């Protein structure tokens, strides 16, 4: 495992430990109902402070049972996790694609790509890499120097062709 992966795993382990410790140490034992939501506790506190307070509005939709509610919470988490996974997966794929295209570009074009890419850069600014840009990225690195993005990023743009 690389050093990076080790640190990431360690971070996750500490988070897991922080979540499990209160349960393992029985920190909720002094309560009638351990580990209820803080929101519900606040509602109780409100009724203690102002016993005659009545909520004046009720939710438009209320999950019919605790099971449905937890299902919806799981859905929320799954949606978020799905988008995050998509993001990192896409980035990883693009990076690998750029690296592969870059490797191919070194063999094929090489010097030819450099002036074209440099010209394009001065004309329109950042990230206007075309097919020639790929060769320039891997070939010399002059272009990476003048680009505001990292080498990989400009490669990505060139491959994906969205900005071109």
């Amino acid at each position, binding site marked *: 495992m690389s050093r*990076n992966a080790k*640190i*990431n795993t360690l*971070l996750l382990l*500490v*988070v897991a430990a*922080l*979540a499990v410790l*209160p*349960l393992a140490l029985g*920190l*909720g034992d002094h*309560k009638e109902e*351990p*580990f*209820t*939501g*803080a*929101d519900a*506790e*606040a509602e109780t*506190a*409100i009724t203690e*402070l*102002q016993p005659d*307070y009545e*909520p*004046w*509005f*009720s*939710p438009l*939709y209320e999950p019919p049972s605790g099971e449905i*509610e937890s299902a*919806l*919470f*799981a859905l*929320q*988490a799954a*949606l*978020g*996790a*799905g*988008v*995050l996974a998509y*993001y*990192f997966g*896409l*980035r*990883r794929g693009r990076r690998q694609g750029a690296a592969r295209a870059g490797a191919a570009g070194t063999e094929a074009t090489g010097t030819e790509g450099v002036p074209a890419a440099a010209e394009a850069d001065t004309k329109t600014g950042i990230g206007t890499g075309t097919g020639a840009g790929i060769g320039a990225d891997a070939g010399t690195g002059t272009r990476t*120097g*003048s*680009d*505001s*993005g*990292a*080498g*990989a*990023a400009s490669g990505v*743009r060139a491959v994906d062709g*969205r900005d071109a």
Partner: protein
Amino acid sequence: MHIAEGYLPPVHAAAWGVASAPFVVHGVRALTREVRSNPESTLLLGASGAFTFVLSALKLPSVTGSCSHPTGTGLGAILFRPPIMAVLGTITLLFQALLLAHGGLTTLGANAFSMAIVGPWAGYGTYVLFRRFGAPLMVAVFFGAFVADLSTYCVTSVQLALAFPDPGSGVPGALAKFGGIFAVTQIPLAVSEGLLTVLVMRLLTQSSKGDLIRLGVLAGRTAERHEGAAAR
């Protein structure tokens, strides 16, 4: 941290709504501008919103024997600045209010004020302060996310204390009570949120260096060289 539907007196609910609205409107404009001028940001914006979605669905046990959840707003505030987070946070709150009966429409203004406005600004301010004093990026990110999380729950406590002062000891007494429920519970969760935000930021520095440089989170050698080239 969500104040439940109907649990703020109408005047308070309206006041917090009025206080939040300009921030959210300004945020929507900032968001449209960002998407228009940097279409490649859309993906990372989605990921920042998704992070808030995951973290605010994550109910974790805490030292006080109750459960609460992180907010996940620190990351987006650091990446895209707080106005944009005001929108992403409010969307998350709206989802929970409409589908989960968690929080509410009448308390949306108050909840948005604590989670989508004060949290992101406090977190972002902390992050900037740490960076200015030369703290390493990940240390600044940790404390930024930590403060974003904790300040949200402190604001919630204040909001409830203002609405429901203790009959004997007034607002301070009520604040101690609500603070004990929300803020103390939140301390270890804020640490968790800080660590998770650092984790995601680490992954981003590996996967999206270009984006982070463009957003000014990473200075990057290439950016400096670019400035140098422009000066020439």
